[in-house]
C-alpha cells in the first residue's frame, strides 16, 4: 500500500506572457520556418529546456517551479491554492495535455481526469451513446464500458433518460453522468477537479463516498482539487498547498487548510494598518489614531478569523496634549456599516484622563461574530460634550471565516442567522406534567 504511484521531480512549467503571434513579420516568418521544420516557436519558448538561463526578461512566467511530490498508492491527496497558484497547470501536466518545461513526472498505472461538465459529451447523442463515447475518450475499451454500464447508469440515476439526447439533460444530470463514467473507469490515479461544486448536496455526498470507496477498497489514488475546504477536509488524508507555482506546504489536512485560510487569502492586505491622516472623519488634532492590528487566538497578526475565535485588537494612539474627561470607543461594524459591538475605555462609559505621548490600546474580544466581513470604527471624544478628538470610520476590514479553528461544522445557514453567536447552549429537557 505504500508504493509510490506518482512522482514529480523538479517539475516546472513556463509560460510566456502577453500575446503569442504578435510581432513583426520577420518574427512571424521565423516562427513559420521553425514550425515547418517541426521546431517549437523560437519566440514563445514554451517547452524549451534551456530557457532558464536565457529567460532574463520578464516576458516569461513560471506557472510551476521545481515541484516535487510523491503520491502513494491509495492516498487521497487534496490540492489547494488560490487562483493562479498552479493547480490547473499541474493537472494539465498530469493529464498529458501539455508538457512540463523541465523535470519529469513518473506514473504507475493509468491516470484519468474527470472532465468538466459536458466536455466530450455530444449534445445530439443519447445518454447511452455518450457513456460509450466519453468512456472511450477517457481510455476505456468498449468491453470495459459494457461491463460497467449498469453501475454507471445506476450511480448517475439517469436510467430513465438513457435514450434521450444529452442536450435535454439538466446540468445536474450531465455532471452526475460525467462523474459516474470517470469514477467507474477504475484508473490507478483519478484526478478530480472542482466538479463537485455543481451537483446538489445528495450527489456531492454520493460522489465523495464513491471517491473514498475507490481509494479504500480499490487501492486507487485520488488527486482532488477544490476550493471547498469542507470537502477537502472530509475526503483527503493529505493536502498539498500550492502558492505561486511552488509547493507551499504539504501535510495533514487541518494544518494545511488553516494555513491556506489564514495566510494565503489575506496576504494582499497588510495585517498592520497605518491609518493615513486623511482617513479621520472628524477631529481637532489633539490626538490621532496611528495604526490598527488584529491578533488571533494563537498570537499571530491576521485579517482572517476563524468562527468563534477570540481575538485582540491592538491600536496605537498618539496623544499630543494632556486630555481630561475623555472616552475611547472602538466599534465593530458589519458589512452594512452598522455598529454591532461597542468596546469602551471606561466601565459603563466612564470618562478618563490620558497623558501626552504614544499609547497602545488593547481590546480582548470574545464576541463570536457570524461569518462575514467586518470593519472597525475608532473614536476618542470628550465625555461631556461628545465632541470628537479623532474619529476614524470604517477602517481595517477583516473577515470571519465559515470554518472554526478546531474542525468543521456542516451548517450552511450560519451566515444568515443573527449577528453575534453566543456559546451559551440551549438546554432541552423533558417536561413531566
Amino acid at each position, binding site marked *: 500500500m505504500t508504493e509510490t504511484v506518482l512522482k514529480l521531480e523538479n517539475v516546472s512549467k513556463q509560460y510566456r506572457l502577453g500575446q503569442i503571434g504578435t510581432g513583426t513579420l520577420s518574427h512571424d516568418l521565423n516562427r513559420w520556418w521553425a*514550425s515547418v521544420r517541426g521546431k517549437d516557436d523560437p519566440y514563445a519558448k*514554451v517547452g524549451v529546456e534551456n530557457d532558464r538561463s536565457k529567460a532574463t526578461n520578464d516576458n516569461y512566467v513560471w506557472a510551476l517551479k521545481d515541484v516535487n511530490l510523491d503520491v502513494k498508492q491509495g492516498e487521497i491527496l487534496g490540492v489547494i491554492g488560490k487562483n493562479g497558484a498552479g493547480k490547473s497547470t499541474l493537472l494539465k501536466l498530469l493529464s498529458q495535455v501539455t508538457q512540463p518545461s523541465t523535470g519529469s513526472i*513518473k*506514473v504507475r*498505472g493509468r491516470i484519468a481526469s474527470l*472532465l468538466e461538465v459536458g466536455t466530450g459529451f455530444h449534445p445530439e447523442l443519447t445518454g447511452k*451513446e455518450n457513456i460509450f463515447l466519453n468512456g472511450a475518450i477517457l481510455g*476505456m475499451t*468498449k468491453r470495459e464500458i459494457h461491463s460497467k454500464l449498469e453501475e454507471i447508469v445506476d450511480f448517475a440515476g439517469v436510467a430513465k433518460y438513457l435514450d434521450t439526447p444529452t442536450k435535454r439533460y439538466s446540468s445536474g444530470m450531465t455532471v452526475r453522468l460525467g462523474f459516474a463514467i470517470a469514477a467507474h473507469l477504475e484508473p490507478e490515479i483519478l484526478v478530480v477537479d472542482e466538479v463537485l461544486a455543481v451537483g446538489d448536496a445528495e450527489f456531492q455526498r454520493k460522489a465523495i463516498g464513491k471517491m473514498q470507496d475507490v481509494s479504500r477498497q480499490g487501492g486507487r489514488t485520488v488527486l482532488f482539487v477544490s476550493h471547498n475546504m469542507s470537502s477537502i477536509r472530509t475526503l483527503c488524508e493529505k493536502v498539498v498547498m500550492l502558492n505561486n507555482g511552488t509547493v507551499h506546504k504539504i501535510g495533514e489536512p487541518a494544518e494545511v487548510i488553516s494555513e491556506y485560510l489564514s495566510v494565503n487569502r489575506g496576504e494582499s492586505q497588510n495585517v498592520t494598518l497605518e491609518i493615513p491622516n486623511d482617513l479621520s472623519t472628524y477631529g481637532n488634532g489633539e490626538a490621532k489614531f496611528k495604526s490598527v492590528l488584529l491578533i488571533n487566538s494563537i498570537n499571530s497578526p491576521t485579517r482572517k478569523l476563524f468562527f468563534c475565535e477570540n481575538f485582540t485588537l491592538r491600536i496605537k494612539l498618539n496623544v499630543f496634549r494632556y486630555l481630561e474627561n475623555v472616552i475611547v470607543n472602538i466599534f465593530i461594524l458589519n458589512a452594512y456599516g452598522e455598529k454591532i459591538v461597542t468596546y469602551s475605555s471606561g466601565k459603563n462609559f466612564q470618562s478618563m484622563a490620558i497623558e501626552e505621548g504614544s499609547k497602545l490600546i488593547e481590546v480582548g474580544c470574545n464576541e463570536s461574530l457570524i461569518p462575514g466581513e467586518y470593519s472597525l470604527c475608532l473614536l476618542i471624544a470628550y465625555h461631556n460634550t461628545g465632541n470628537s478628538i479623532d474619529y476614524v470610520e470604517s477602517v481595517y476590514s477583516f473577515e470571519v471565516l465559515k470554518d472554526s479553528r478546531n474542525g468543521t461544522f456542516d451548517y450552511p445557514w450560519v451566515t444568515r442567522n443573527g449577528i453575534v453567536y453566543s456559546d451559551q447552549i440551549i438546554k432541552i429537557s423533558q417536561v413531566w406534567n
Partner: protein
Amino acid sequence: MQESEAGVDDSWDLVIKPKKSWYSLDLKSIWNYRDLLVLFVRRDFVSVFKQTILGPLWFVIQPLFTTLIYTIVFGNLANLATDGIPQPVFYLSGVILWNYFSECLMKTSETFIVNQALFGKVYFPRLIVPISIVMSNFLKFGVQLILFAIIYFYFTFNGGVSPNLYILLLPVLVIIMAGLGLALGLIVSSLTTKYKDLRFLVQFGVQLAMYASPIVYPLSLVPDKYKMLLILNPATGVIETFRFALFSAGEFNLFAFSYSCFSMIALLLIGIVIFNRMEKSFIDTV
C-alpha cells in the same frame, strides 16, 4: 504509452518529460484507442442525422444537385467538352471525389480549434480525431458512391460507357484522395493553432482549387503548355485515372498518377510530423 522513451526506468508505466525528439509516431497507442476511433466515426456519422427526416439521403441530394447545376452551367451553357463521357456521370464522378477530398481537408484542418475544450482536459492520441474524420467521411463517400454506381450502370447499359482493367486501381485512388485531404488538413490544423488566418484561406482556397483540378472539364481540354502545371496538382492524377478506369475515355497518364501517389505519401509524412509536434504544445499557443 505515448511518452515513454528508451532508457527510462521500466518500473514506471508512464514518464512525462519535455519532448526533445521531433518525430515520434506511436502507432501502438493509436491502436489502443481503436474503440475511441470507432466511436468518433459513429458520432460524426450518426449525430449529423439526428432530428432530420431524410437522414443519410442528404449525402445523396447534395452531389445530385451539384451535378445538375454543373450539367446546366458547364455542360450546356459553357459547352465544355467531357471527353465523350455522358455529362451526368462525368460531373458526378468529379464532384464526389472532390467532395471527399475537400471535406477531409476542411474538417481535419479544424481539429485543434474545434476540439480545444476536449484536448485541454484529457489526453488521447490526437491523431485519432483526423483519422476518424477521414473515416466518417469515407462512409459518406460510400453512400455517394452507391448513387454514382446506380447512375453509372444506367449509362453502361444505355450510353455505351465501359470500364477497363484500371478499375482495380479504384481503392488506391480513393486512398490517395483521402490521404491528400488528411495530409493538407493536418498541416493546416497544426498551423492554425497559431495563425487563425489560415482558416479563412482554406475555406475559399478549397473552392478555388477545384477549378485548378479537372472536375468540371477534362484534362484533354487544357492547352498542352498548361497541362504540366495542372498535373502538378496531385488531385489531377487521381481524377483523370478515375475517369479513365470507369469510362475508358481520355488517357492514363502514368506520370500524373505516380506523382499523385508520391506527393500524397510525402505530404502525409510532413503532416504527421508537424501534427505530432504541435499536439504537445498546442494548448499553450492556441
